[in-house]
């Protein structure tokens, strides 16, 4: 199936929004994504792509079924424990960059590290700076988000997602607000990340052209998994 041992697994995951008329977002999803795999979740709008990503990212909890991160069942964890797993093992990139507008690019990248508090101040700064350099933002570390272009902001957001060396990066339509050149840049970064460092990347996209560049495509229709294909490995 995947490229290595499973890092992220869904077992019979169903999510129903309770209400006067209950809405089923996703139903009976079984999925296993391996280490270093670059996977795309695709499907028409309203098919539950993002809902599945939020469940895999522990931002939402399944109505039934369970999500396993590195083999650990997360269904019995408290909200504080889930936050801890997100902090240590997961990184998020959304369609909107969600950078803190008053903080510089560097300070935004530092936030997850400061919360984790595993490195010294100096080490954190060095690491944040090198992440920005890797993403070609070396000269923009001191700039605030409103001084950056859309593509640059999204790359700062990626650097922030990578701050604590996560096992998995989860991206929700990360290229939705970008032009095709920047979109390609983001996907190149993800692919490089997955193949070079072994970080698993799961991205939601409706862009067929980009989805075709991933290792694996997971197709959702009406909240159900209808196909999981190995995409052609680009050279």
């Amino acid at each position, binding site marked *: 199936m995947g490229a290595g041992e499973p890092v992220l697994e869904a077992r019979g995951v169903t999510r129903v929004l309770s209400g006067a008329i209950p809405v089923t977002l996703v139903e009976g999803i079984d999925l296993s994504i391996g280490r270093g795999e670059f996977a795309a979740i695709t499907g028409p709008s309203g098919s539950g792509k993002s809902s599945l990503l939020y469940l895999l990212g522990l931002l939402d909890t399944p109505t039934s079924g369970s999500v396993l991160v590195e083999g650990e069942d997360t269904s019995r964890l408290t909200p504080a424990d889930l*936050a801890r*797993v*997100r902090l240590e093992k*997961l990184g998020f990139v*959304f369609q909107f960059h969600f950078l*803190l507008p008053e903080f510089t690019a560097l300070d935004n990248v530092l936030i997850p590290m400061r919360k984790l508090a595993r490195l010294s101040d100096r080490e954190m700064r060095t690491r944040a700076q090198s992440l920005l350099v890797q993403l070609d933002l070396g000269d923009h570390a001191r700039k605030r988000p409103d001084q950056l272009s859309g593509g640059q902001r999204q790359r700062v957001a990626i650097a922030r997602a990578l701050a604590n060396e996560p096992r998995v990066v989860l991206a929700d339509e990360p290229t939705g607000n970008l032009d095709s050149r920047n979109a390609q840049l983001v996907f190149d970064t993800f692919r490089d990340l997955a193949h070079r460092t072994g970080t698993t990347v799961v991205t939601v996209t409706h862009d067929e052209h980009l989805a075709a560049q991933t290792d694996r495509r997971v197709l959702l229709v009406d909240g159900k998994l209808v196909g999981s294909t190995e995409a052609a490995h680009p050279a």
Partner: protein
Amino acid sequence: MALPLSVDIAVTHLMGRRRQTIVSVLGVALGVGFFIAVAALMQGFQTYFRETIIDVSPHVVVEDEFRNPPRQPVQALYAGGAVELRGLKPEEERRGIRNARAMVEALRRMPGVTVAPTLSGQVVLRYGGVDEAASLVGIEPEQEQRVTTLAKDMEAGSLDRLNTTANGIVLGRELAKKLGAKLGDSLLAVTAAGVTRRVTVEGIFHTGIQNLDEGVAYMLLKRAQVLQDRINVVNQVRLRLADPDQAPAVAQRVEARFRYKAESWQETNQNIFQIFTVQNAIMYSIVGAILIVAAFGIFNVISTVIYEKTRDIAILKSMGLTEGDIRRIFLVEGIIAGAIGAVMGWAVGYGLTEVLASIRFDFSDDPSENRFHLSYSLLHYMLGGGFALVAAGLAAYLPARRAARLNPVEIVRGAA
């Protein structure tokens, strides 16, 4: 980077809403400032009043009366029975404290107690065409000096001259003014007993307590007894204590032992102290109201910040910050606003107190009475600051709790 993450974000939020933050901080500052100034004013006055009373008047006064009317023999016989007596003519007793000399001796042996026997009664003083009624207190000057500050309060003449002049009298300043009498003038004193004497003004005193200054005159105990036609009678024994706070306890002991009514200075001035209590309650309510208004300001800023920062909250939570972390951010914002407000309030309070201290009135010739009596107390600053922090903390807690519960999924979805 020295700041913890939550404090760093909190400060950033407040800096981003500088104008609104300043307004809410000023609200807190004014609340704290007014509290300090008003507390200084009121406690200053109350302390001044208390100290004047403790200084000027005796701490315990034993009088020739009883708290309860005497029990009639028939009531003792049928205790608890349905007995009513009508047309009873009480036995006419000779008023005064019986065996006062022995009582004074006994009281004198109590530790920390000084004693002075007096006879107090009514007198009408006549000078020129003016009649003024006053309390005439017969004293033994050297003993009275140890019980009240009368000797120190003499403005003209002296207390000792009562001993050397045949019919000397000492008047309160306002009383003398009403009579138009000056030192050395000769007045006519008439008592209810029908005795009339010529008396000479040998001294004028001023205590600062209105009742004493305009309604009391002192003579030698022996002369007063003659004037009242009550030879050898003492109807008031005045006590001064080393520790004025012991007065109620001492009064109780004295009353239990001698049966005569013994009144402490606290009891005598009870109604005034009750007014003080009401005053304090009013002050604390007003200051409380100001701080509540200030708290609404803080509530407002933080609610606005949270509304504006829902996206930040969502990303921080998805990053792995806990509900507690988010709550802390906004709680810290409230506490910072409250703390800055408290410190500014201290400055405002100090300034206002200084302004009050510099005000002068034109009430009397005594300069100490022409200004506010202020009390500078660290406790007021601590209380004001404490109030501000608690109010700010509460005002911040409610929106902070709401922020912590925001669901990042809903926000992330909506932001796309």
